[in-house]
């Protein structure tokens, strides 16, 4: 899997590239819009990450031109602008996702993976499993070592989201957005409290925990 980063800020590009390489992707980096367009036009990338403010050719024009040339590589836009209008402009130009700076790397990684999954069109599994834990999305049933676990609807969605991202860290903001459709994280520790309750239902005392807290970053199921 190869990812193209078009970003003029070298330090941002470096940490994104480093993180992506650690996650097993090969990464190429263009520092201006025109070079980025040239490389992206070859169509050999699985995902492109494009900054909006770029020298020579801005990100939005780059995506428009790329789509006109018939290249369908999924694109994630990075922008310092966070208003809804800018988001819409990015999506209308033909991008597939939009991320506002400063972003958390785990969120970027999750979105890259989501786009690759979408393009490769692997049907989403309807049953997810980890150790003794099993989740059936169609029958909305969770079992732990064969025993039925009663979860509230949001707890079910939260667990499903964690299980679909097994091994990947998801941030509180991502959880708020996916599970509650809130685009902000309230000051009160609502996610911690919910996670605490979920843990008490799916983890057995004495056994190693399933949900791990990564301080400052989020949660990971493994």
């Amino acid at each position, binding site marked *: 899997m190869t990812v193209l980063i078009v970003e003029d800020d070298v330090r941002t590009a470096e940490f994104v590239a480093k993180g992506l390489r650690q996650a097993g992707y090969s990464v190429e980096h263009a520092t201006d819009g025109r070079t980025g367009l040239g490389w992206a036009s070859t169509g050999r990338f699985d995902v492109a990450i494009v900054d909006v403010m770029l020298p020579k050719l801005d990100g939005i024009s780059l995506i428009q031109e790329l789509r006109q040339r018939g290249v369908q590589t999924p694109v994630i836009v990075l922008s310092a602008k*966070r208003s809804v209008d800018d988001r819409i402009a990015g999506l209308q130009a033909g991008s597939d996702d939009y991320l506002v700076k*400063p972003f958390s790397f785990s969120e970027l990684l999750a979105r890259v993976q989501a786009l690759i999954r979408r393009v490769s069109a692997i049907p989403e599994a309807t049953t997810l499993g980890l150790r003794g834990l099993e989740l059936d999305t169609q029958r909305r049933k969770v079992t732990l070592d064969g025993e039925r676990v009663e979860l509230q609807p949001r707890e079910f969605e939260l667990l499903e989201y964690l299980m679909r991202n097994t091994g990947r860290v998801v941030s509180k903001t991502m959880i708020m957005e996916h599970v509650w459709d809130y685009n902000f994280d309230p000051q*009160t520790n*609502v996610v911690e*409290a919910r996670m605490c309750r979920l843990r008490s239902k799916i983890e057995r005392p004495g056994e190693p925990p399933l949900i791990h807290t990564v*301080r*400052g970053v989020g949660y990971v199921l493994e």
Partner: protein
Amino acid sequence: MRLRLTLCYALLFVAVALVLLYTETVTLRRHFAEAQDDALLADVRQFSALYHEFGLQALAGDLRRAAEARGTENAVMVFRRSNLAVAASSPLEPWQDVSLDTPGLAELQPGDVRFRTLPVPDLHLSLRLAEACLDDGNYLQVGQVETAAPAVHHYQRLFFWVLGGTLVLGVGLGWLLIGRAMAGVERVTQTAAGIGLGDLTSRVPRLGRGREIDTLVDAFNAMLDRIGTLVRELREVTDNIAHDLRSPLTRIRGLMETVTLSGESLESYREARGQVIEECDRLVVLINTMLDIAEANAGLKKPQREAVDLRSVLAEAHELFEPVAEERGICFQLELPETLPAVAGDRRHVQRMVANLLDNAFKFTAAGGQVSIAANPVAASVEIAVADTGCGIPVANLPQVFDRFFRGEASRTTPGNGLGLALVQALAHACGGEVSVESEVGKGSCFSVRLPLAVTMQQEK
């Protein structure tokens, strides 16, 4: 400027007056000439009738009497034989310099009448002469000094006097009036120039002279007030940013520095690492919230106005905060009526307002306390009330609780950025709503947000 305006108006005035004078003169002349010709023609008819009835002798006497009655220097009448020899006439002495033997007289046919204008030398007058060929081939000339010219001259002289007077008065008055108007504009200009130099506090004094100038002054001062408010807000925000960004940055730097210098265990590194990320996130939230408030306050972005189902938003919020309440031993209640009309607003903004009010309520409520959220229709709006049994707010602080970065004594030690309630107020105002608070120290607080009904939103359209 003042001189130029005055001169322009004077010039325009004179030009219009001259055109008026010209047309008046022409009309007057024509009018007088026609009246005189009519009179001469009547004379000709009268004298010829007299001649036919009573003969030459009677006519001769009549001509003299008529001329004397009109003044022999003003009128002249001549009766000529068909060979043009003078047979009878009024006294001809005053008319010696005028050639009354007009050329072409002999060519007139009996019954013809023609008019001539002859100059009277030395006197600068003209003689208007009606000449007729009578039925028996004799000729009759009746003349009268032209009356039009002196009358028109008299009129013109009068006109110029009046024009002159009006001009002097007009220019003087115009000079004064323009001066006053310009003084008003000048005041505005001077104030504007002062503001250009950085003095935003000055206002143009309202002198009550001239409605237009006062309107200009009012509009200008209103604009200055608005600019002043914006600049003050901007300055406050920058000051606060400078202050509130420094603290977390200091913590971040301090955290990393202590860890780096002490070279402690891997565990302390991990701990510091997490704390730094959390501090960074807080910084981002702080900046974003400040921008949100500024955006909502400035009205730069019109919020999406859609019909928001409050029941679902409030139920979701209750569901979201419920585990926290349980964890902290707080009784958390949701009180909703059976039906609730939709409100006009942005769903995400309503989510945000409710979550911020709940954040606030939970922050100040101790274990064993109570937090409740309720919504009820009030007039053309719905009131969302979030009540707690927390420590309450002193009356003196109530007016400030919605201010940016205001943090009461009780909240100094609790985490928070002092922006939550300010954002609630900004978002409520942005969608046409209102916020209010009631509180009693030791008993708790109740924050309310009133949002307009979606129905009124449609009526507005």
